[in-house]
C-alpha cells in the first residue's frame, strides 16, 4: 500500500527517451549537414531557388547523430557502415571501414610505386573513389520478382529502384566477405580484396550480379506477367 502511494508521490519523468523517428510526414525535408555547400544566389537555377525557399519554410527532420558537417562525411560509406554493424556496435563497424580504406590505399600506393611510369596514371589511389566505383560495378540493373499466375509462381525480370540496387550491392559484398573467405583473415582484409576485385569487374560479387542478369535474361519470356 505504501509502495503504491510512494509511486504517486515521485516526480514524473518520461520512461521513454526521445529518439529520431523514421516515420515523418512526407513534407518534412531531410537535413543537409554540409555547411560549405552554399552556392551564391546568382548561380542557382530557378528550380534550385525554389528548393532553397522551401528549405526556409518547411519543417526538417531531426539529424542523426552520425551526420557530421565535416568534409569526410560520406552518406554511402555511412550506409555501408550501418549495414556492417552488428548488435549496435558502431565503433567496431567504423573501425573496420577505416581499416578497409587504409588497406585499399596501401595496396594501391604499393602498386603505383611498383609499376612503370607509363601505367602509373591509370592506378586509382583514392580509396573513396575505389569504393564508389566498386559499389557501382556490383549494383544489379534488373532483378527478379516472384509473381504468382495460375497457381504457379514464376521468377519475373523486374526493374529495381536505386535504393534496392544499392542495398543489394552492399548486402552481397558483406555476405560474400563474411561467408566465403578464409576464416583467419580479418574483415578489413577480406573487404579490401573484394572491393579491389569489384573495382576491376572481377571477383565473386560481380559474378553474382552477372548470374542474376543471366537468370533475368533466361526468364525474359515472363516479363509480361508484371502488372506494374
Amino acid at each position, binding site marked *: 500500500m505504501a509502495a503504491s502511494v510512494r509511486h504517486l508521490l515521485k516526480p514524473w519523468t518520461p520512461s521513454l527517451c526521445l529518439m529520431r523517428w523514421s516515420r515523418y510526414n512526407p513534407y518534412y525535408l531531410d537535413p543537409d549537414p554540409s555547411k560549405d555547400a552554399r552556392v551564391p544566389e546568382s548561380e542557382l537555377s530557378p528550380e534550385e531557388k525554389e528548393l532553397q525557399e522551401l528549405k526556409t519554410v518547411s519543417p526538417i527532420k531531426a539529424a542523426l547523430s552520425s551526420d557530421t558537417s565535416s568534409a569526410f562525411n560520406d552518406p554511402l560509406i555511412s550506409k555501408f557502415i550501418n549495414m556492417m554493424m552488428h548488435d549496435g556496435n558502431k565503433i567496431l563497424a567504423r573501425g573496420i571501414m577505416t581499416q578497409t580504406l587504409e588497406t585499399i590505399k596501401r595496396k594501391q600506393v604499393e602498386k603505383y610505386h611498383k609499376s612503370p611510369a607509363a601505367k602509373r596514371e591509370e592506378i586509382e589511389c583514392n580509396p573513396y573513389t575505389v569504393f564508389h566505383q566498386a559499389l557501382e560495378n556490383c549494383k544489379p*540493373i534488373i532483378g527478379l520478382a516472384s509473381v504468382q499466375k495460375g497457381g504457379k509462381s514464376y521468377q519475373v525480370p523486374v526493374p529495381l529502384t536505386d535504393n534496392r540496387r544499392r542495398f543489394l550491392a552492399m548486402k552481397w559484398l558483406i555476405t560474400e566477405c563474411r561467408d566465403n573467405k578464409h576464416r583467419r583473415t580479418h574483415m578489413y582484409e577480406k573487404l579490401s580484396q573484394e572491393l579491389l576485385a569489384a573495382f576491376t569487374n572481377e571477383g565473386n560479387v560481380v559474378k553474382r550480379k552477372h548470374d542474376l542478369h543471366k537468370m533475368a535474361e533466361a526468364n525474359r519470356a515472363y516479363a*509480361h506477367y*508484371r*502488372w*506494374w
Partner: protein
Amino acid sequence: MFITGAVYIRHYRKAMSGSVIQEKVAKLLSRQSGKPVLRPIKPLALKNEVASRKLKKGEATCVTEMSLLMACWKQNDFNNTVCSKEVSVFYTCVEKAQNKAKAKQGTQGRLLPKEANTLLKRFPNQSSEI
C-alpha cells in the same frame, strides 16, 4: 435583400433537402400502403468509412527497353560498359514510368479511399445532435 438567382436556388435546396429525404425514407419504410419497400437490417445512416477501390491492373512497363538491353547483353557477354547506352535508356524509361505511376495515383479529381477514410476519422458524420 436582393439574392441572385443561383444563390437563391441553392438556399432553397439546402433548406428543403434534409426534410425531403426524411419524408421519402419514411414513405419507403411505412406499412400503410401494403408491404414496405425497404426492410433494413442496419440503420439507414452513412458510415464513417469509404469502401476501398479495386486496384486496376496495369501492364508491364519498359518491356521493349528491357528486351533491347537483354539482346545487347546476349551479344556482348553481359558486359555493361559496352551496353551502357541501352542501360541509360532503360533507366530513363523506368524513371518516367515511376513518375507517371506516382502522378496518376493522386489525380483524376477524386480523393483516394485511404485519404477519405483519414478525413472521415478526424471529422466523422454526426450521428446525434450535440
